[in-house]
C-alpha cells in the first residue's frame, strides 16, 4: 500500500513483569491506507482493544513500532503523544466516555481546548453538534441524553480538532439496533469527508461494509 496513514511493525504487548506473563499481542504487522474504512474483528479478550489503544497512543507497546502519518509514535514523549491524540487522532469509545459534569457542547469544546484552540475560537463545536443533529441538546449533560445521542456527541468530539484518523472501539456495542443504524450512518458520513476510520467491532454485518477487515485471534492478526 503506497499511502499508509497507519503502519504497525512487529507489535507486541505483554502484560505482567513477573514469571506470569500475558501475551496480548504477538508480532502484529498491519497497514491502513489513508482515507480508508477498516474494521478489526475478533472475539473478546483476543487483543482488539489493546491493538487500538497502541495505535492511538493510549498505551505503549512492549516492543515493535506504530507509525502514524510516518511518525513513529513509540519514540514520542508523553507530551508529544498527547498532542498527537489531540490533533491527529479522534477516539470513539464503546461507553462514550463523555465528561459527566460538562454539557454536550462543552464536551466538544474541551477536546478543542486540548488541541490548542482558544476559547473564543471554539464556535466550531456548535457546527459539529449540528453535524450530528444535536444542536438543540447543546446544554444537556450526558446523563440527560440517550445512548445513541451520547455516542453522536462522542463522534462530534472526536472530530473537534479535524483529525486524520478516527479510532472507534465498538462504537455501537452499547446501542440498540435503531441507534446503531443512526450512529453508523453518521460514521459513514464522516468517512465520506475523507477521514481514515479504524473500527473495532463484534458485528460481522458492520465489518462487511468496511474496505479492509483484519481479524485478530489470540493476539495474532490476519487480513480477512
Amino acid at each position, binding site marked *: 500500500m503506497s499511502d499508509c496513514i497507519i503502519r504497525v511493525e512487529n507489535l507486541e504487548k505483554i502484560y505482567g513483569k513477573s514469571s506470569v506473563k500475558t501475551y496480548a499481542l504477538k508480532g502484529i504487522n498491519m497497514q491502513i491506507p489513508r482515507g480508508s474504512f477498516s474494521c478489526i474483528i475478533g472475539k473478546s479478550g483476543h487483543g482488539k482493544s489493546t491493538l487500538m489503544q497502541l495505535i492511538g497512543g493510549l*498505551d505503549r507497546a512492549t516492543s515493535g513500532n506504530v507509525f502514524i502519518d510516518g511518525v513513529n509514535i513509540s519514540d514520542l514523549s*508523553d507530551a508529544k503523544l498527547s498532542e498527537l*491524540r*489531540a490533533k491527529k487522532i479522534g477516539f470513539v469509545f464503546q461507553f462514550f466516555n463523555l465528561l459527566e459534569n*460538562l454539557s454536550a457542547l462543552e464536551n466538544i469544546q*474541551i*477536546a478543542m481546548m*486540548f488541541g490548542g484552540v482558544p476559547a473564543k475560537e*471554539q464556535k466550531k463545536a456548535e457546527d459539529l453538534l449540528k453535524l450530528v443533529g444535536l444542536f438543540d441538546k447543546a446544554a444537556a449533560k450526558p446523563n440527560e441524553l440517550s445512548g445513541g445521542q451520547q455516542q453522536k456527541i462522542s463522534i462530534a468530539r472526536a472530530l473537534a480538532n479535524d483529525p486524520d484518523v478516527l479510532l472507534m472501539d465498538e462504537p455501537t456495542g452499547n446501542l440498540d439496533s435503531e441507534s446503531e443504524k443512526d450512529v453508523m450512518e453518521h460514521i459513514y458520513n464522516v468517512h465520506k469527508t475523507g477521514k481514515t476510520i479504524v473500527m473495532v467491532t463484534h458485528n460481522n454485518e458492520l465489518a462487511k461494509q468496511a474496505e479492509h477487515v483484519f481479524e485478530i485471534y489470540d493476539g495474532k492478526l490476519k487480513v480477512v
Partner: protein
Amino acid sequence: MNVLKLVARNLLSRKGRFLFTLLGITIGMASFVALMSIGQNMRNEVTAQAYSLGGNFVIVPDDLCVFNQIGIITGDAISERLDFAEFEKIAAIEGLDVIPHLTRRMMIYNPTAGAQQPTTVTGILPAETKTFRNWDMYAGEYFSSQDHEAIIIGQGIMNRFDLGVGDELEVRRGEMFTVVGILASTSSNDDTNVFMPLSVAQRVFDREGSVSYMSATVDDMARFDYFYASIHSVANNVNVATNEQLLGAVLTIIGSVNVTLQAVAGVALIAAAFGIINTMMTAVYERRREIGIMRAIGGRSSVIFRIFVIESGLYGLLGGILGIVVGIIVSVFAAPIIQGDEMLMGLEAGVNIDAVLIVSAIGFSLVISILSGLFPAWKASKLTPVEAIS
C-alpha cells in the same frame, strides 16, 4: 472552554465536598487572622500607651515585677512601695521634671453591663501633672487646689460608664466624690483613668506618704546616664526604666503570647491543609476515569497537573478571603471580651486589619493550599489514559 472554567465546573459539581473543604481552610485562616489582628492591636496599643506616659522614663520600686510593668503601661494599679520623701529628693535634681502617681483600684457601676467593673484611680499632684501631661479639659473644671476633694475622669471612663460632670462616685466604701471635670482625650491610658489629688488619694486609701511610681522627663536625654546615677545617689530602693525598656519588657511578653496563639492557629491551618490533601487525593481516585478521558482526547499531563493545582489553589484563595472576613468578625466580638481582662483593661480594645495582614493572609492560604495540592496533582498527572479509563 478553558482550564479555569473546567476547574469551576469540577468544584461546583461536588458542592458538598467543596463547601466542607472550604470551611476547613476558612476556619484555619479565620483563627489566624483574628489572633494576628488582636495581637497586633495589642502591640500597637501598648506601644502607644508607653509613649504617652508623658515622661522619658519611669522611676519604680527596685523589685517591681513584670506584671506591674505591664500595669504602668496599661494604666492599671500597681503597688505603692515608694516613699513620698524619695520623690522630693529626686524632684530636687536639677534638669529633671518628675511627677508622682499613687494608683489604686475602684469599682464603678456600668449600666450597659449591669454590673460593677474595676477601674484605676490615680492620685496626682494636680498643677504639676496638668503641665507635665499637657492636659486640656473636655468638660467641667480642673482641680482648684492640691487637696480638692473631687475627681476628674478621662473620656474613656465617661463613655464606658455613661458618666458626666456632677455625678457622684464611691471611690472607696463610704467615700463619695463628685466628678468636677472630664479630660480632653489624649489617646493614652489617661482616657481610662479616674484622677484625684495625691494627698486626697493617700488619705482615702490609707497610704499616707506613699506613691506607686514616678514619671520623669529630662531636658536632654543624652544626659540620661547622669540622671540615672543622680537618682540612685539620692534615693534608695528605686529602679529607673526608660519607656523603651518598659515597652521592650512588655512587648516580649506579648510577643510570646502572640507566638503561642499563632502556633495554635498554625495547627488549625495544618489541619485544613491536610483536609485539602485528603479532598484532592479522593478527587484523584474518584476522577480516574475523567482524568483518563481527558488524557485520551489529548490532555497533556501538565494540563491535568495544572487543573488539580488550580483547584486546590482556589480552595486557598476563597478560604483566605472568607477567613479574613470571618476573622475580622470574630476579632470584633472577641476584642471586648479581651478588654474585660483586668490586666488589659486600660487598653483600647479593637482589631488591627491592614493591607499587609490581608495580603499576607491570602498569600499564606494560597501557598499552603497549592502545596497541599501538589502531590495529588502529580498523582493525577501520572495516570496513563488506559490505566485511568480501565
